[in-house]
Structures are given as structure tokens and as C-alpha cells.
């Protein structure tokens, strides 16, 4: 699904020869999809909460650029970017948000539980922190199967406060599991700032005490993120066990819903301004050839239009579907 102007995904790239066009394509794709979701939202066609990643797309896009298709990813309710970057079907995503039968989960999961068997998206959980052990178990599975695959697990800063995070780190490090932990630190859990939740901000240091190599990206830089992901993935694939990246970026929209929320009082537009200045979509858009960029942009719009059409016209699920999938055969 990701645009590929030549260099195959998964190819080792130093940050010097990273494929900027492909990264731009990935970022712009997620951004535009989410902007479209936000535009559609007031129509009430999307009958599901939406947690947008606008402003923090870079971690998913950079990591998935480095992963193989056969690798797994696991994410959260704020999971559109990850699902799309890993190659989840856009049609499936939009139809899912519309609650239609053509959705990624046939309408049963909604925006918060995007999943793709084809793209190896292990799903997404709306109970904060719960995907971390699941991803860890998938990594255990990869290791036991000796199949060379790895797992990338994404979660927010709030997730790190759940006990399951510490438990998972210890186990992953103990068993040298092939897993990349990516904390997307956007400084807030809903409206609560880190200062109300973290005793200190020494997260990387803490993770390192498990013997896990860590990297902090504190400025949303997609190229640094790509570089860190590449090194981490190489190390993991070499059998060195887990790696951890703390990626700091800013959620530009409200916690849940399509709008901005700087009028709500819990955070200030000034804070956002710094991060807007670092916008990676804008940055990369200036690094590539304008014609190529126009082509990429046009392709994306076409793809989005087609997916919206698909979602609109996909039939509602039949009532019998309610009773399917409670148990697997």
C-alpha cells in the first residue's frame, strides 16, 4: 500500500540514503486520511469515536518503512497511522469506521480496533497498555518459531504507567525477544500532562536498566526516527533482544474527535506552535521534487476518494453477524 518508487521496503538504508519520497508519501497519506476523517466526522457517518494522530504520524511511518511486510505491529485506539503505515487497507479502515460489512473487522471493532491479517497488524486495544504484553507474546512466538520476524509495539506515554509495561519489558529483555517498543510520548493522557502522572521523565534511563538499548527522539524528526528504527530493527534481527524508542511529538487535535481543542484551557496554542514549526509532512514535502510530490498527492487523494466511496456503499452488516465470531471454530 505504501508508495514505493524503487527501493524495496526493508532494505537497509542509512539515514543518508533513506527514500525521502517514500517517507513523504507515508506521512502525507496518513495526514490526508485523517484530515478527511475529520472532515467527514460532522456528518455522523462515522459512528465511532476517532483518536487522530495528526502531528504524530512520523513514528509509525518511519518504523513501518523499516519493517518487513511479514513483521507484526501492535497499536492502540490512536492507531490509524500505524494501521495505514503497515499497509492496512484504507477501504477496510473507512468502512470499519462507518460500521459497514466491508470494514477491517466487519464493523465489529470500529476506529479503535483496526486490524489486518494481511498486513500483520495484530489489532489495537482501547484499554490503555493492554497491547504491550500481547505484542510481547507475539515476539515470543516469533522467537519460538525462529522465523526471523520481529514485532513493533506502539503505545502512548500513558501506557508506560500501567504495570503491564514494566512486566513486559522485563520479560522481553529476559527472553531476548525480537520486539521494538515505541513509546509515542505526546505529553498528555487525555487532558492530563506528564507532570500529573510521571514522577520523573527518566523513561529511557529506566528502560535501559532492563538491558534494553534506548533512543530518545525529542523533536518529532522523522529522519532521526527512521535512523533509530533502522538501528533498532537491525539489532533486534541480529538476536540482541528488544529495543526501545521514546518518540516525542504533539497531538494537534483533541484527544478524541476531529477538532482542535486549544480553547479548552488544559494546554496552550503556544505549546503547539513549536511543534507545528517542526511539521514533518511540510518538511519532507520541501525535500522532494515538486512534480513527484504533486503526483504522490494526487494518488493519495484518488485513493482516499475511492475508499470513501467504498465505505459509503459497503452494505451494513447482516443481523446474523452479531452472533458470529464469538468463538472460533
Amino acid at each position, binding site marked *: 500500500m505504501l508508495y514505493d518508487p524503487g527501493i524495496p521496503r526493508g532494505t537497509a538504508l542509512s539515514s543518508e540514503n533513506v527514500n525521502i519520497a517514500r517517507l513523504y508519501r507515508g506521512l502525507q497519506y496518513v495526514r490526508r486520511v485523517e484530515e478527511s476523517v475529520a472532515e467527514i466526522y460532522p456528518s455522523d457517518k462515522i*459512528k465511532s469515536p476517532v483518536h487522530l494522530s495528526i502531528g504524530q504520524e512520523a513514528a509509525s511511518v518511519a518504523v513501518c518503512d523499516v519493517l518487513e511486510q511479514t513483521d507484526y505491529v501492535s497499536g492502540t485506539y490512536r492507531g490509524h497511522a500505524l494501521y495505514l503505515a503497515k499497509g492496512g487497507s484504507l477501504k477496510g479502515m473507512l468502512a470499519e469506521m462507518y*460500521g459497514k460489512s466491508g470494514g477491517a473487522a466487519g*464493523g465489529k471493532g470500529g476506529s*479503535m480496533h483496526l486490524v489486518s491479517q494481511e498486513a500483520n497488524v495484530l489489532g489495537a486495544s482501547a484499554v490503555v497498555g493492554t497491547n504491550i504484553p500481547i505484542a510481547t507474546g507475539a515476539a515470543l512466538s516469533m522467537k519460538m518459531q525462529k522465523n526471523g520476524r520481529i514485532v513493533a509495539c506502539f503505545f502512548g506515554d500513558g*501506557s508506560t504507567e500501567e504495570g503491564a509495561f514494566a512486566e513486559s519489558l522485563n520479560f522481553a529483555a529476559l527472553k531476548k525477544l525480537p520486539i521494538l517498543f515505541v513509546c509515542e510520548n505526546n505529553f498528555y493522557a487525555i487532558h492530563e500532562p506528564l507532570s500529573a502522572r510521571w514522577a520523573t521523565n527518566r523513561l529511557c534511563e529506566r528502560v535501559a536498566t532492563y538491558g534494553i538499548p534506548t533512543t530518545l527522539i525529542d523533536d518529532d524528526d522523522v529522519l532521526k526516527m527512521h535512523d533509530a528504527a533502522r538501528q533498532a530493527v537491525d539489532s533486534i534481527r541480529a538476536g540482541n533482544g528488544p529495543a526501545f524508542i521514546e518518540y516525542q511529538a504533539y497531538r494537534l487535535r483533541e484527544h478524541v474527535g476531529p477538532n482542535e481543542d486549544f480553547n479548552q484551557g488544559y494546554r496552550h496554542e503556544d505549546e503547539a506552535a513549536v511543534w507545528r514549526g517542526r511539521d514533518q509532512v511540510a518538511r519532507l514535502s520541501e525535500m522532494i521534487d515538486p512534480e513527484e510530490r504533486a503526483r504522490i498527492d494526487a494518488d493519495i487523494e484518488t485513493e482516499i476518494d475511492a475508499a470513501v466511496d467504498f465505505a459509503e456503499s459497503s452494505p451494513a452488516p447482516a443481523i446474523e453477524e452479531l452472533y458470529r465470531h464469538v468463538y472460533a471454530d
Partner: protein
Amino acid sequence: MSMQIEQRGRVLPYVHAIREALAQEMKADPSVFVFGLDVDDHKGIQGSTMGLVDEFGAERVFTTPLSEDAMTGAAIGAAMTGMRPVHVHIRMDFMMLAMNQLVNMAAKTHYMYGGAFNVPLVVRSMIGKSWGQGAQHSQGLHAMFAHVPGLKVVAPSNAYDVKGCLIEAIRDNNPVVFMEHRLLYFTEAFVPEESYTVPFGKGRIHGADGEAAADVTLVGVSNMVLECLRTKEILAETGVRCEVVDPISIRPLDFDTIAESARRTGRVIIVDNAWVDFGTSAEIAARIAENDDLRHVQIRRMGYAPTTCPTTPWLEKEFYPNPATIAEAAYALVHPDKPGLSVAPEKVELAYQAQFRGPF
């Protein structure tokens, strides 16, 4: 004997009644404090804790890290040593993270320590519904808690009861699982201004109108009380008369009030806001069943479909009982030989939208 409700005070929405109960108890007792994720933000748990931090300060009203397990333990520890914490979860589903502390510690403390310590703790949580809440934001899990001696479980269905029950819960020297429902938040009832308590273990019967005995008893849990009251209206048009029983507290359970109504009507439908199997409706049915002199009573149970809750509205609407499905079941029970009732969808929607103004 079931309780009657008072019809005094202002008409207040459920959410404000919660807030008022918290504020009054915090004012009356400095050992009461309110904590949990997001209780102090500008949305204040959908309004139910709004402004408390301004009134009582950040030491008594505070958010926590996302650490439900340890925060529950912390609440227990504080409760054991002189405080009266109210711990808030915005969804009941998240209480699964707190299960170990609630079941293995809170419920057991007073007993396994031979009475040396009490746990005067209230754990508030809300059941979600609709708009894509789905699998993990919609569960009514009260039966799990009600199974455990040492815990109390309450599910007030209206603004009057929610205030009185919350004050009762805060003053109770035991851990109380306090279950709210998102869709009840804006339902209204008369609520006295002053502080009052609604005791646990006493239900209410909302009787059939007029003198004749009712045909069927509907026992509703949490917001299903509202759905049952609407069912009663729908069925009245068909000549079928209902009594609606609201047990209010699940543990202790006022079985006498249920039995009294069941004996009268000979037919009981229990409508739970939860799965049927191994749920609260099973306990109520079982209590009737083990009563030899209630063996004439016909019993039916309704609740969630035996599935996970789907997000898509097309399936979600089949997942829950509603006044139409309840009315149809009740009608079939009362008139097994008549053709089945079919309720127009418009009639059902009212149940969600109507502003209940008590008395109930």
C-alpha cells in the same frame, strides 16, 4: 417492603446528583477524597466531578497515573488508615485491572484480619453504551463483584437514588462498587437539596396503575429500569399491566421485594444491563426458583446478546434489550396463545430520550 421515593427538591440530572453527593460528603467529612484518572480535568468525568477540585483543592481531588491496579490498592490502604476514598473509573471495563485488589484484598481485609481493619472505599464506574463504545467500553460486570462476599454492589437508576446511594456508599465501612450508566447521566428526577441516604438492600416497586393486580413483574438493573418503565407504558396500551422492580443494590439484594411482586403477578422478566449467563439475572431467577412457594412463577431473563459488544450500530442495536423486545417478551408470557406483539421502533426511542422527572 419496597421503598417509596420522596418527591421533593429540585429536578436535577443524575450527573449533578452525583456531583452534589460528592460535594456534600466532602464538606461534611474531611476524610473523604475523590481520585482517579481525569477527575480533575475540565470535563470532570462527564460532569460528575466538575469543579470539585476548585472547591476542595488538589489534595482532595486529583488525577492519577494510569495505574488502576496500584491505585485501587492505594485506595484500600488509605481506607484502612482513616480515609474514605472515592476512586473513579470512567468505564467499568477498566475495573478488570483492579480485580485483584478488589477481590483478593478489599473484599477480604476485614475478614482475614479478624476485624482489625475496615475498608470504607467507594469505587465509582460507569457503563458505556453506543457511539462505537464496543467491546471494551460497554460492559456491565457487576455480577463478578456481587459474587464476592465482602463487596457491596449498587446500581442506582435515577437521580434521586444516585445521590442517596452515593452518600450511603461513602459512609459505609465496606468497599462498595458503585455502578453508574452513561445514558442515565442526563435523566432527571426530584432530588432534595439536603444530604440524605438511600439504604442498600431495599428495592422499589413502580406499581401497576389502578387497583387490579399486574400481569407481569419486570425487574430492571441500572438503566434497564428505564427501559422497563417505558415497556410498562407501551404494554399499558395493550392492556398488559406491569410492575417494575428496581433492586437498586445488587449485593445486598432485596429479594423480598422481588418475591412480593412475583407472588402477585406470577410472571417475572429480569432485564439486566449485562450478559444473561452467569449474571445477576441468574441470581434473581435462582432465588425465586429455590423458593418452593414461588414455583408457580414463570421466569424469563433478558440482557446483552451472548456476544461481545460490536461497535457498528446495525449490530449494536440487536445487542441490547429495549422496550420493544422487553414488551414483546412480556406480552408473549402473558398471552402465550395470542399472536405476538410487535412494537413500532419510534416507541422505543423515547426510552433513551425521555427526561425522566421521577417519581421513581
